């Protein structure tokens, strides 16, 4: 019998394997042609066959995604701190932020391409624009929800705004921030790939558009699988980072195992 910890570790793999199996069975049973829905075995065959170009485009997308994500972390934290630490900034900026976040980013991409040309820049900007909002909102929430008593303690010690932000605001916002990174990184992938599908010569989005225009549907799915894998890998990277940086927020209990243990 496996330990509960090992069971918890193996479960996600079982679920993925089960999904693929179900998918395979469905395709075989319904006799779906590969250009409608390729079976996982076909998808993995395409993945192996085109591993070179897929790797090239995936790395390109990873690069633009991470660049855009880095920008959105910098911008999101700065905006979050501004919005969270001042009621005036909150009132002034929040409607604009929400309005901006409501705009479908796919609508902006053509404009970005007119401005910056076909290439990595529109993808980086789209990745940034789509992912900064959750970071901003979370950082602002963490800073703005400082307990009034604690604020009194600090003010009565003569703490400056910077003191309060450095000693309490930022550490307090850290769990919110790390939680938002996990959401933001997956959004950043969506952003860069949207941009690549609209106009680019490189990247997974471009690869998929090219493949589907040639009815190479297995290749499209192979690219999708790679995107999902990159998203999951990044998510877990930030989940690990979160656990290390803000273990105190969960009182030392590992949330990944708390439910199963």
């Amino acid at each position, binding site marked *: 019998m496996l330990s509960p910890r090992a069971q918890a570790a193996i479960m996600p793999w079982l679920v993925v394997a089960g999904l693929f199996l179900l998918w395979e069975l469905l395709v075989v049973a319904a006799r779906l042609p590969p250009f409608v829905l390729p079976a996982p075995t076909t998808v993995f065959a395409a993945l192996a066959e085109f591993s070179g170009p897929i790797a090239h485009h995936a790395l390109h997308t990873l690069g633009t995604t991470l660049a855009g994500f880095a920008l959105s972390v910098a911008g999101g934290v700065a905006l979050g701190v501004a919005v969270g630490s001042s009621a005036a900034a909150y009132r002034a900026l929040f409607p604009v932020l929400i309005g901006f976040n409501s705009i479908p980013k796919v609508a902006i991409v053509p404009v970005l391409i007119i401005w910056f040309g076909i290439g990595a820049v529109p993808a980086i900007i789209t990745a940034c624009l789509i992912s900064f909002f959750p970071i901003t909102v979370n950082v602002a929430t963490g800073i703005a929800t400082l307990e009034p008593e604690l604020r009194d303690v600090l003010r*009565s010690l003569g703490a400056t705004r910077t003191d309060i932000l450095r000693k309490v605001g930022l550490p307090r916002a850290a769990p919110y921030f790390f939680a938002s990174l996990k959401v933001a990184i997956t959004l950043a992938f969506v952003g860069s790939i949207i941009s690549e599908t609209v106009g680019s010569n490189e990247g997974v989005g471009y690869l998929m558009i090219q493949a589907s225009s040639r009815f190479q549907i297995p290749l499209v799915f192979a690219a999708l699988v790679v995107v999902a894998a990159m998203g999951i890998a990044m998510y877990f990277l930030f989940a690990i980072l979160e656990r290390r940086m803000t273990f105190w927020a969960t009182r030392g209990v590992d949330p990944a195992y708390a439910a199963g243990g």
Partner: protein
Amino acid sequence: MHGLTPMAKAGARFVSLEGVALRYGGEGGGTLAVSGLNLAIGKGEFAAVVGPSGCGKSTLMKLVTGLATPSAGAVIVAGAEVSGPLKIVGMAFQNPTLLPWRTTLDNVLLPLEIVAPYKATFRREREKHVARARALLATVGLAGFEEKYPWQLSGGMQQRASLCRALIHEPALLMLDEPFAALDAFTREELWSVLQALWMERRFTCILVTHDLREAVYLADTVHVMSARPGRVIETRRVDLPRPRDLARSFAPEFVEIVHALRDRIAEARASSC
């Protein structure tokens, strides 16, 4: 002007409120939290403030510490009228408000990283401060818990740590806002002794806001009774019981008699407001 409240006779006057009123929520409208509030507390005195709920006790805390500015009257602390947040104050509340990402020791050190004379030299003299913080934690019975995080401590232990944080910078004035209200009866009485010992050793001026009349009489030199909102001090009662007071004495007739007298006075204050 202190006609309403007999003056306490302990030491030079350290805190005084003269005809203070505070209205929340703008001129004319809003709520009058306190009005005609007179209060005098001597240097090194332990004062308790009791009263019906919503009588403006917490407002009193904010006024004395300069976190709120009176709409009328004057608040004078250490010979100067209070015009902004005071920096000679330590504060503790019902909620211990310790920072969960800092160890107990680092929580206690927090004020030294912020408050004026220590802030500039904190890094250089860290060793010295750490030794002081450890000693202080030991006096409240937290030796061996310095490296624990607050969420690893019980409620009573968190409150002890919170007291240490309030005292580490050796404030001249300690403000306590119902610090023991959320604790169980045994822990609460234990912490009365801890607080009394700290006070007897350091003799800071202390203002304790509480609902608990036994707590007030056990700890304080003077107990001030506040009226229902708008709050003012309607009675000041000296507690001349010898120190150190022990818990057994809190059931002695002279102790109980004071508690009952205060209780009746608060009941009157409540009734008159209805």
